[in-house]
């Protein structure tokens, strides 16, 4: 389990956030700040690359759901890609897979934005 590092990649109108490590209460301000920056710059088409994410807290999930909702109001979305079986299991057990769009790879998520 590592401290979370968030790297932002821009592809035309899309933003891909690569998450590496654990998203818990300690690293939550980093996620909040990354999402706020996207919101303030009106970037509403976002993919979260979760391949290297090893933990996600309820607060982080709540923030992602809120961001997705606001992005959808602006005709955008926040999509999750490459979740580990562990994280997918958590998201599914909590019922959030019905709220958040989840893809097995990034290209699939990009195509959904096209």
């Amino acid at each position, binding site marked *: *389990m590592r*401290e979370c590092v968030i790297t932002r990649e821009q592809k035309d109108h899309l933003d891909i956030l690569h998450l590496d490590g*654990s998203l*818990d*209460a*300690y690293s939550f301000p980093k996620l909040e700040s990354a999402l706020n920056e996207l919101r303030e710059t009106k970037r509403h088409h976002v993919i979260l690359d979760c391949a290297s994410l090893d*933990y996600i*807290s*309820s*607060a982080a*999930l*709540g*923030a992602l*759901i*809120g961001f997705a*909702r606001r992005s959808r109001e602006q005709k955008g979305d926040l999509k999750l890609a490459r979740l580990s*079986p*562990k994280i997918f*299991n*958590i998201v599914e*057990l*909590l*019922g959030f897979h019905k*709220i958040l769009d989840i893809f097995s790879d990034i290209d699939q998520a990009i195509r959904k934005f096209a």
Partner: protein
Amino acid sequence: MTSLPTTETILKHLKLEISGRYCELRGVRQIISDACQWAGLTESQCSQLEMAVDEACTNIIEHSYGGEAAADDMHEHTIRLHMKHYRDRIVVEIYDHGSGFDYASRTPLQLDQWLAEKQERGLGLYVITHFVDDVSYERGTRVGNYLRLTKRL
């Protein structure tokens, strides 16, 4: 003659004390996860209990202790955890000395309503009650606020 373990025999008892700081959570999760694996829980059960304990400790720091910034050199906030492995269940007992919660008067979160109200916070207890089989809480006992999470095997 050696007596067989009953359902009340503790097979393993892990004790842990941390300061009420968010940077401690990663270590707690790792210890809980390792202990769950040792106890033979499935990968899914391990991550559920790991998350329930993380959410419980986060709630204690945020609400019972009023945030980690509220601690100072004179008033270090501590959280004590006891993880007990019984033959048929894992029990995690968590103690703190903060203001505690009014657990009895809480309204269980309904996800549909939470979404309809466009909320983003307040999922901690939803996670805890979803991922363990029993939650009990006593505020202000002789040894502090006492939260017990039980996950059946």
